[in-house]
């Protein structure tokens, strides 16, 4: 995949991604309007389909709210690359079909507006402008399958199908 990047720091928590005050609304489109608003109030207006988020350590720490990756994905985000992820966000992202890539070097390789190329199967991240590239550990096959199925619902459906 390829996309324009938005770079954020460490510990981007789930309340920053989607605040609790909006969680009575189960419509992903409404959640997407508020995505990251307490961190970057302009984000939901400037993000475009296919954009990639690059961040530092512990992305998605905090709540188990699946609305966090859902809001990012619905807003158009095609992948999140971070130095590390909190475990529940990481599982949730895969389960709703949002690719998550753990890569310690990424935050230092990009600035806002750069374009990133990601090969999720081979584990390569490239900054298109600078040409700089880095390898990351690939996901186990069954997790890649879940992402490629666009999430656990479709993956489970396929497995249950006769």
């Amino acid at each position: 995949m390829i996309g324009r990047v938005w770079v954020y720091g460490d510990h981007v928590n789930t309340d920053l991604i989607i605040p609790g005050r909006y969680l009575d609304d189960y419509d992903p489109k409404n959640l997407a309007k508020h995505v990251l608003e307490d961190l970057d109030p302009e984000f939901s207006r400037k993000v475009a389909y296919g954009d990639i988020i690059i961040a530092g350590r512990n992305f998605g720490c905090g709540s188990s709210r699946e609305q966090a990756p859902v809001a990012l994905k619905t807003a158009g985000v095609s992948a999140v690359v971070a130095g590390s992820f909190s475990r529940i966000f990481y599982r949730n992202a895969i389960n709703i079909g949002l690719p998550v890539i753990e890569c310690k070097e990424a935050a230092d390789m990009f600035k806002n507006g750069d374009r990133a190329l990601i090969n999720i199967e081979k584990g390569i991240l490239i900054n298109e402008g600078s040409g700089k590239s880095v390898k990351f550990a690939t996901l186990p096959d069954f997790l890649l399958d879940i992402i490629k199925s666009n999430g656990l619902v479709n993956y489970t459906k396929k497995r249950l199908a006769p």
Partner: protein
Amino acid sequence: MSQMTFAQKVLARAAGKESAEPGEIVNARIDLAMSHENAALVLKAFKEIGAKHVWDRDKIILLFDHRVPANTMKAAEGHKTVRDFVKEEAIPTFYDMREGICHQVLPEKGHARPGMLIVGTDSHTTTYGALGAFSTGIGATEMASVWTTGELWLKVPETFRLGFDGKLPTGTMAKDVILHVIGDLGSDGADYKCVEYVGPTIDAMSIASRMVLCNMAIEMGAKAGICFPDDVTRHYLHGRTDVPFTPVTSDPEASVEKRIDYDVSRLGPQVSCPHTVDNVRPVEDVEGTPIDQAVIGSCTNGRIEDLIAAASILSGRDVADGVRLIIVPASREVYLEAADLGLISCFVRSGAVVLNPGCGPCLGAHQGLLAPGERAISTTNRNFKGRMGSPQAEVYLASPLTVAASAVEGAIADPRRLLP
């Protein structure tokens, strides 16, 4: 057979294996699956999967606690969707909005027992480690998959063993211990790990205090927190459940990734400062910081020992002018006990507002949000920017003693000065 940790033993057993190694991914059978309001999201995914019925209705527990009574039309619709499903599927254990916070209700009703593997669609599901269960938070979609198959893939975690020695000084509570640890290890310091709390300090703690430690294990990124079952556990569970259980502990020679020892005999009250939980300082460093609101409650600190602690400060004193003190018992059982002990009248006399059992303002959904520029001190578990209302507000986290003392003084206060 090689020596195994608690996490290895529970996950191996749940996966039907003799043993399991840290890092290994196992397909585990779930003993208990808990959801609150977000069951509405689980249900949506469950229907999308096309499953006809849940795998085992006796292993699912549903209740409402995040927005009770419903605070918006949308919340009411969400509740109704889940109520209808409970009827359709004849789910026997559904507490609606009347019992309180999930993490208090499951232990109280004897649903969380030693050796179980429990998952919940809430990050503070780690709380049941205080009862000797391996319990962890998961998302809504994977819960739908659990409802369908009863199984979930889990990576067997490495273990951090935290040892505690020393008697807690007067004025210091379990909350101060865990804030100190999180300040020390950092908010991702135990990412993916099973954190074991061991030692004489833990042995002397009540189940309620152990719940504080396990509850906040997630605030350092842990997958699970555990206090090994003992006579205190058995005594707590006596009369709450007739279901037999097998206590599970780590083998003495099992290998752990890290062992850290704390002497808490001189630990004073701790305060977590905005906007991350690991920004922890001794209360002396922030004393005198003015506050607008004080909150005592939540799955972290809304239990009877917390309310008794608060009353020890509030009894015969008034909440400071200009401060709003909100007290939320964690459950109906706690509420009734507090009423029987005269705590509720003590609180109301002091000027506090006592709310119905539930999550209250902890997650910024309702019942006491903060305006821009306001500052609160709270016994809850997160102080993230925007957590309790405006992103321009500030939340400090502390023990029930420290929060009660701060409410009386109108500024962050050292409770040791006000204790008898």
